[in-house]
């Protein structure tokens, strides 16, 4: 927390409820034969979650976005860096219910995240009883109905005694969200909550998250690889590549005006039927460069990990990961090329 660059971009005057500062984690892998190899899964990530805001973290598989969510959920211990809850560092030893009371999670797989042998009632009454939000009996029952109402599983009486296998994927994900809400948290971590749902049911879940942000003022972390959904939902966005956050800013600004070479490539690759005429796979005959792929994170490239694929890479890129360059209101890009452009105030060539 020494320089400004290590702090996540903040909205002025708003107090983050949960904040990751320079979070880094290495996972040991079974090297065998005495080799102690580690996967450098996440490198110096700083993300702040603010009440009433949805912060998206986008990236491809293996970019570290789910690892970040699980660090926030305290399923892993970070190798270094700090998590601040209400600006107070979270003690790694003192875990438990106080943290969980503030921070809850919705998992990706609506089939795996509910216990297939328990009813909807069981899933919702446990958090109520554990956190004392309702005592036994009528109060619990009433609160469960309120929660089902909240996630729009109505009429609630039809759902309360259902087993998970009697529900559709979308309905299960609502139960999963209701379970998290039963704790009455201030932060909701949503790890790819729609990726396993049928397309026609995704928007309802996204709209529910929007309602939780606007009405209940929750701070929401939205992890996704679906960039269009992040644009629909999020206020702020962080783009990750191979365990590093390469670009952050308001969702509209980052997605409509990406600056980092990787963000440009990523957003250029998303199918966009509304721009069919300008950017169509079928009409382009240009020679394509050999496809690049994310690096092996056991032996990641030094410095910026995008260097081997980057058309603008220079020797400096391999030396150290660039500190963030502020290029707009809270819009930060970790890239030497972008920083040079800004300092020489060249117009954007692309």
């Amino acid at each position: 927390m020494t320089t400004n660059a290590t702090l996540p971009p903040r909205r002025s005057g708003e107090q983050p409820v949960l904040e990751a500062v320079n979070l880094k984690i290495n996972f040991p892998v079974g090297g065998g034969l005495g080799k102690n190899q580690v996967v450098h899964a996440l490198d110096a990530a700083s993300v702040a979650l603010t009440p009433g805001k949805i912060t998206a973290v986008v990236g491809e598989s293996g970019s570290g976005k789910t690892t970040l969510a699980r660090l926030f959920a305290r399923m892993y211990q970070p190798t270094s860096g700090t998590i601040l809850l209400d600006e107070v560092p979270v003690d790694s030893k003192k875990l438990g219910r106080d943290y969980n009371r503030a921070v809850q999670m919705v998992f990706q797989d609506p089939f795996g995240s509910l216990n297939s042998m328990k009813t909807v009632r069981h899933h919702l009454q446990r958090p109520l009883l554990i956190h004392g939000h309702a005592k036994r009996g009528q109060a619990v029952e009433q609160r469960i109905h309120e929660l089902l109402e909240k996630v729009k599983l109505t009429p609630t009486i039809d759902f309360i005694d259902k087993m998970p296998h009697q529900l559709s994927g979308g309905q299960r994900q609502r139960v999963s969200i209701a379970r998290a809400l039963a704790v009455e948290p201030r932060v909701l971590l949503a790890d790819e909550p729609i990726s396993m749902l049928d397309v026609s049911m995704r928007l309802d879940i996204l709209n529910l998250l929007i309602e939780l942000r606007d009405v209940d003022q929750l701070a929401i972390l939205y992890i996704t690889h679906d960039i269009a959904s992040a644009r629909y939902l999020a206020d702020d966005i962080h783009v990750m590549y191979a365990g590093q956050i390469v670009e952050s800013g308001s969702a509209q600004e980052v997605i409509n005006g990406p600056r980092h070479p990787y963000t440009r490539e990523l957003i250029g690759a998303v199918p966009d039927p509304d721009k069919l005429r300008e950017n169509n796979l079928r009409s382009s005959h240009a020679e394509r460069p050999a496809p690049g792929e994310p690096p092996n994170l056991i032996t990641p490239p030094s410095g910026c990990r995008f260097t081997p694929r980057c058309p603008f890479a220079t020797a400096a890129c391999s030396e150290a990961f660039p500190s963030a360059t502020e290029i707009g209101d809270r819009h930060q890009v970790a890239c030497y090329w972008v920083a040079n452009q800004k300092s020489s105030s060249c117009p954007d060539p692309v």
Partner: protein
Amino acid sequence: MRNALSDRRAQAGLLIALFFTAIAIFGPLINEHVLHQNPLAIDLEAFGQPPSSAHLLGTTSSGQDVLAQLIAGASQSMIAGLVAALLGTAIAIIIGVTAGTLGGRIDSALTAVTNIFLTLPGFALILIVAGYTSNAGPVLIGTIIAVFGWAGGSRALRAQSLSLRNRDFVQASRMIGESRIRVVIVEVLPHLTGWVTVMLLMGFVGGILSEAGLAFLGLSGVDTVSWGTMISQAQAQNALLGGMWWWFAPPGLCIVALGGSVALINFALDQSYNPRLSGLSRGQLNAFQKIKKRVQRTPKSPQSSENVLEISGLTVEYVTDRGNVVACKQVSLNVRRGEIVGLAGESGSGKSTLLTSLVRLDRPPAVTTSGSVLFTDRQGKTTDLVSQSEAELRPLRWTSISLVLQSAMTALNPVMRLGDQFIDVLQTHDTTLSKAAAQKKTHELLKNVGIAPNRSNSYPHEMSGGMRQRATIALALACDPELVVMDEPTTAVDVVMQRQILANVLDLQRKFGFAIVFVTHDLSLLVEIADRIAIMYAGKIIEVAAAEEIWNAPQHPYTVGLRDSFPPLSQTTVSLRGIPGAPPDLRNPPSGCSFHPRCPLKFDGCDRDEPELLQIGETSVACHQYEGANPKEMVIQ
């Protein structure tokens, strides 16, 4: 569990087990009040007698009544079995589940202990311990057996709880603040019921057999009667040589019957916990055969030689015990030579069923009940794929139609080098091809998809996911097919790689002119690559139109809803609504138009009549709102 109890084998097994349990409990009473026999009473007047009305199963060489001994012995065997089962399983649960859920050092220590017990020569130790404790009763024997026999089950339970520990629902209950002990008891343990039941049953049988074995060796009390001591004494008194079968056969048969009953229950339980083991039920098979016979094929000719594929009236059903499920209903679709046809739909829309049926890879319980799939090759020869036998289809596979699946790792052979798999395919379809020529062709094919020739020496696991998927595409093009069917070929790869792969596929398609049927749930992707798109819902094609039309002017309310379920990437963000409700359950489809329960435009009649596919300009759409608009142009495509 309930399924298992309705299984006839389980019922038979339970009946036998209950019979022996009753005998074990009421044995002394039966002996005293019904038979008026004391199993240990020596009657020198009546030694070695064959069965008679006085002694229903004859007597031993000391004149003891065999039936009375058999009845008295039941309780000894059952007690040994029960103690072994209950105690052994309890130890296994405590050690195995603790190790599996706590992990770390506790796991290492407990696993070490388990492994030591696993390597101990169990029965030899049982012999030694039993030998030192003379007059070992059934409880002691059961205990000894449990102490030496829990390790195997414990390992299984540890493995199970280890995998459960990382499941999301366990993580989720930790997340809401559930205590560790409750997580184990309330969330994890119920999932181990199947394992625990099987362990109890196995422990029971093991206990009975070991008790018999120990008694046979003379290691149980002299004054107790059990099935084992009966056989032991019969052996000691040369009953076999003396032809006294009534002495040793009944206890032997009882042991077999009790063990067999447990095995029967076990079979049924195993099948109910792992339904995949069972295959088709007899009812399913009968129904399946009947349908196969009923389906009649009438030779058809294609509407146009321009169509490489003409699917008409294709219906595919899944045969289940509770009637047939129609997964694909009267599907008709043409694919023109060199055309890219997209097939979009959600889960349960029937798109995967249609795909497997048209490449004739459907397997029971799926059966094609009507319709035809006409394939016309470049020379103009037409084949109805539905009526072909597997042998007749083989020459068409890969040279005419090839397939790219979602998971490249399963499409490629993990123990073969990439190049060898290509050479294998090439030489299978062209037996005259030399190895050198096949190698040259392999390098060419790999180069087509941007893979360096030297990678042909790699194994699939040495390649990245994107490279594997490109290799599968190259493999699908190996024999110059006229139609390539692609089932979600890029769902498993990242979006940057997806674009590169698709650009590559489109380049090759332009170069070689094959047609593509591309199946995906991602409509926004299809719009970019397909010429025409067919939308499927609840087993039917509900709209077919040019790709841009589907996006810019969708006709069917479902297509409209599906399109609006994709938030825009560049257009202004507006609040969007998905489609209310969920896709229908095909086991119980809605009446009339299957979309009517979710349709914002439904009117009277939608829940009654099934709409036909109508031609509206260039678009085909199955929706009642278009009926009567231009009835003259109603053409069923």
